[in-house]
């Protein structure tokens, strides 16, 4: 019984570690001022290999991007995607943990 519980706990810890290992980035995007425009940024970022989630915060002018473990988003690639959407990359940072609330200039 104790052995089963230990295994279950280990699996849980491992899965949480995998989740936490996702690479998350916070992009500051200038020029973004309406919901309909946000979709263009999502579309361009979602084309990048390994991207699993894109969340646009219009009010803060930031975009949070999550990538699979082992995948990275370089600043150059982020800038290219934002430019292809017609906007301007203001800032780029890799977020800590899952919250990804950093918006370092």
């Amino acid at each position, binding site marked *: 019984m104790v052995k089963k519980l230990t295994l279950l706990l280990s699996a849980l810890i491992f899965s949480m570690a995998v989740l936490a290992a996702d690479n998350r980035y916070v992009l500051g995007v200038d020029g973004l001022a309406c*919901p309909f425009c946000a979709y*263009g940024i999502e579309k361009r970022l979602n084309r990048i290999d390994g991207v699993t989630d894109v969340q646009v*915060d*219009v009010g803060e002018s930031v975009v949070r991007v999550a990538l699979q473990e082992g995948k990275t988003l370089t600043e150059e690639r982020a800038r290219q995607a934002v430019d292809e959407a*017609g*906007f301007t990359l203001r800032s780029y940072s890799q977020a800590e943990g899952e919250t990804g609330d950093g918006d370092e200039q």
Partner: protein
Amino acid sequence: MNSSRRPVKVSVLVGSLLLTGGTMTQAAPNTFNTALPVAQGQTIWREQLVLRERSDDGPMDRDVSVQALVSVLGYGVTSNIAVFGMVPYFFNKELDVAMPMGPMDRIERDTSGFGDLSLFGRYTLYKKDFTGSTFRVAPVFGLTAPTGDDNDSDRFGELPRSLQAGDGAWDGFGGVVTTYQTLQYQLDGQLLYRENGRHDGFARGDETRFDASLQYRIWPRSMQGVSGTPGFVYALLESNLVHRERDQLGSGTDANSGGTQWLLAPGLQYVTRRWIVEGTVQLPVAEDPHGDAIEDEYIVRVGFRRNF
């Protein structure tokens, strides 16, 4: 009496319908263009139902009703270049006209079908992005092809040229549109010139227009504490100042066509990430028609936009 031979001055039907609505497809004014970006590889689809009523106070006492659906597809070739295709489908274009010298007091003439296809491109010449706002300037150039039927007839004979679904001529247009957008409001302005081609002895008068628009976000009332990408509700007020030269008929001009009109259009727009639902009513504030040229009473526009 064959009324089709009369120089019926039902001006601006096709040209104004195309250029006073259903053009570009971003979150933008209802009645003209915007300079906001279309992302590279992004497609935007727009449908706009147009109900237009026109009349005159002249001896012919004409009433014109138009019910049309304007379809637009836009595509971002690059982040700076977008191309658009637009075609109206007329459910009905109807002319109701007095016939004081004829066997009937009034007659009704109508047509339906696809109108002329417009293809145009827009290039973002200048942009300045700020946090939560943007300013853009974009020239626009396009052509209207004579894809609509221009020789429809009824029991009275061939329909008047200006009542046909198409005008039979190639037209060209160009201008510049500018946009300043913030999270709270958006200002758009457009200056556009349209040169209408000649076909079979008839050319609609060339058109110059100046448009302006204010969109003001009324919901959410504040962005404080609002995260993600919520839907916005905008109140709109749009202005269209349009001058049309006289139509050309044979070697002369139609004295009772063209003129200048100023329309104001209040409206509402609900904008989400993927959809826009919108509606406006264009109302004439001032009209200075040439002679007895027909004048607008109102134009209702309702529709949606969807991005892919």
